[in-house]
């Protein structure tokens, strides 16, 4: 009996590793990699990379490119509805980036060389509803080709960014021409008085601010306090922007701004300036699996010279398992007009000159982006002015096959009732090629 028990024990002893072996035998051929994956990977690397990157480079020297940039060439085709003709413009930009890092100091600069060909003089009146143009001609007769109504695309060299960052243990200083952004919205940022996004191209680079910015970390809210002073002609004309950006629980921003506004009277050509203040808040987080974001801002006129108004935004985004991302954003701006009947020549020209953020009161943005084969992206966006029921559809196809090249093909199909925002230009198309170096 005891020998049987011993035999059983020995069998059990040997059966455990045997079971493990059996388990391995049960593994499908798919489970374990075939061949030598690391040898194969090395062969891929050696045929894909430059020889200078070898293991054991001195750890302190990161071989990052100091000088880089891109050439952006845009071929734009625009259909002018009032003139019933197609206009062509070739807009090019050579951007040179120079970055250098020292121990506690980083320096960043960007210089843009912009040059244009084709239709380079844009008469704003050609894109206005006939009703507005007639009102103007009634005032001034047929000769209203004053410079204030024209925009010339001139070749130019711009120092787009040039700023240094000094990082100390409890404070950082950003000095010079720099990007200053706040807010969580994609197309609009009511809390951001500095940057004015192009609604039809919200991803495009934003102009900088000449400023001195101090950033203090706020560990209690996992964030930081930013205080920026934007330089102007004299100290009292300067703009001030303070915002707390925190990341506790969800991302939220609290913003206070004291900023300049300009208003041009397009009938007399006179410009008046003033100050506004802004108090705002923004957040980004998630509700279950859905990403949500929102912003709200209250703008007041200093010394009651300008009317106060409220603007807010709410949006969501979601990514499906098949790599499709959808997004929606609703924007309300109380300074806009309720319908196209309320649009005036003044509001149109202020809007075109970016003195006024938008024409209408209510807007909706919808988009769906699908990544195809990892190297291309197909998207369809719609921007709808709910106040005047006009819309702009923007199908877009982006090819990112090469590390040095991006190709973007997009068109804009606009429609709406007479006098509405998107009725003046019916269609436009763009081929944008970026060469990176």
């Amino acid at each position, binding site marked *: 009996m*005891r020998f049987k*028990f*011993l035999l059983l024990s*020995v069998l*059990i*002893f040997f059966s*455990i590793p045997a079971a*493990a072996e059996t*388990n*391995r035998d049960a*593994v*499908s051929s*798919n489970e374990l*990699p075939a061949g030598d994956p*690391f040898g194969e*990977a*090395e062969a*891929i*690397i050696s045929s*894909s*990379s430059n020889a200078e990157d070898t*293991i054991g*480079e001195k*750890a302190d020297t*990161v*071989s*990052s*490119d100091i000088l*880089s940039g891109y050439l952006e060439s845009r071929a734009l085709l625009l259909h002018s509805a009032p003139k019933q003709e197609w206009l062509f413009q070739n807009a090019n930009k050579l951007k040179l*980036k120079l*970055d250098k890092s020292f121990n506690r100091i*980083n320096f960043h600069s960007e210089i843009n060389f912009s040059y244009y060909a084709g239709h380079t003089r844009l008469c704003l009146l050609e894109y206005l509803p006939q009703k507005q143009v007639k009102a103007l001609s009634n005032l001034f007769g047929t000769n209203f080709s004053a410079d204030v109504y024209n925009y010339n695309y001139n070749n130019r060299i711009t120092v787009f960014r040039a700023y240094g960052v000094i*990082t100390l*243990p409890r404070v950082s200083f950003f000095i010079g021409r720099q990007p200053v952004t706040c807010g969580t919205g994609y197309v609009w940022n009511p809390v951001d008085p500095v940057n004015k996004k192009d609604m039809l191209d919200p*991803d495009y*680079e*934003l102009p900088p601010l000449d400023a001195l910015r101090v950033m203090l*970390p706020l560990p209690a809210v996992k*964030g930081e306090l930013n205080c920026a002073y934007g330089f102007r002609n004299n100290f009292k004309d300067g703009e001030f922007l303070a915002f707390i*950006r925190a*990341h506790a629980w969800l*991302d939220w921003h609290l913003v206070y701004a004291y900023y300049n506004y300009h208003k041009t009277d397009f009938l007399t050509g006179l410009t008046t300036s003033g100050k506004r203040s802004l108090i705002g808040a923004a957040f980004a*987080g*998630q509700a279950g*699996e*859905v*990403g949500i974001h929102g912003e709200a801002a209250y703008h007041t006129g200093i010394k009651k010279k300008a009317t106060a108004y409220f603007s807010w935004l709410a949006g969501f985004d*979601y*990514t499906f*398992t098949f*790599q499709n*991302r959808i997004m929606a954003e609703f924007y309300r701006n109380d300074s806009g007009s309720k319908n196209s009947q309320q649009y005036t020549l003044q509001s149109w020209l202020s809007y075109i000159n970016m003195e006024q953020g938008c024409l209408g009161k209510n807007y909706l943005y919808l988009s769906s982006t699908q*990544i195809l*084969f*990892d*190297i291309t992206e197909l998207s369809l966006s719609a921007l709808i002015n709910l106040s005047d029921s006009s819309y702009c559809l923007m199908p877009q196809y982006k090819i990112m096959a090469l*590390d*040095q090249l991006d190709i973007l093909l997009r068109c804009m199909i606009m429609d709406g009732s007479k006098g509405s925002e998107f009725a003046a230009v019916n269609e436009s198309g763009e081929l944008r090629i970026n060469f*990176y*170096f």
Partner: protein
Amino acid sequence: MKVKYALKLFSILIIFTPALSALSSAAIVARMEKAAAVPGCRMLYRQVIKRASGSRSVFKIESFTMNGNEKQLLRYLHPAKVKGTAFLILNSGDDIWAYFSATGRVRRIARHARRQKMMGSDFTYEDMSMTAFKEKYKAELLGEDKVFAKACYKLKLIPKERSSYAKLIVWTDKKLFVPLLVNYYAAGEKTAYKQFMQGKIKVINSYPVARMVIMKNLEDNSQTIMQVLQVEMKPNINEDMFVPSYLKR
């Protein structure tokens, strides 16, 4: 009588010895986390993405990590197209922020978006949380096996939270407790659709560092290779860099 008891005791010992010598799944997972818990580290990687079409992209990435992968900062250095783009991954992948140099904005990546591919590679944002085994997965020891000629523990990991994966099968080195091979399974699938491999392991400052990491997408026939070019252990790494505002610098 004494002989009888001695034999019984011997038999019981024989039965339980393998069980005593083998580690439990919880102990293995704890050892895996300990092996990965590098206090502070800076690495320079070369990343090569090889797509099914044969086209390739080469990136250079600088990474800073703290407490294993609890806090990670990744910054793309090359090519110019993505230079400056950076990711901050906190709480072992629960919170991710991205900074895209083209737009100059820092954006939080929502939970649903973590199934997206990271910069076109075969890694998703979710894959970046691979080291928090105990917190994120329920582990079961399947046995022992050999992978890349190394003795391994074979574990089944079931995500505790909602995940793109239904389960992971992990082969972890018995000596170093580094996961050498991870197979990813979709719900209802018996065959893996993604495969993660780590090799060329070198022990630096008593921590095993994989100098080559491969993520293969077996469905798409694409793969992403991460080759370590530099490793610098930084036990006193500055925690201040692991904040979203640092991404812009």
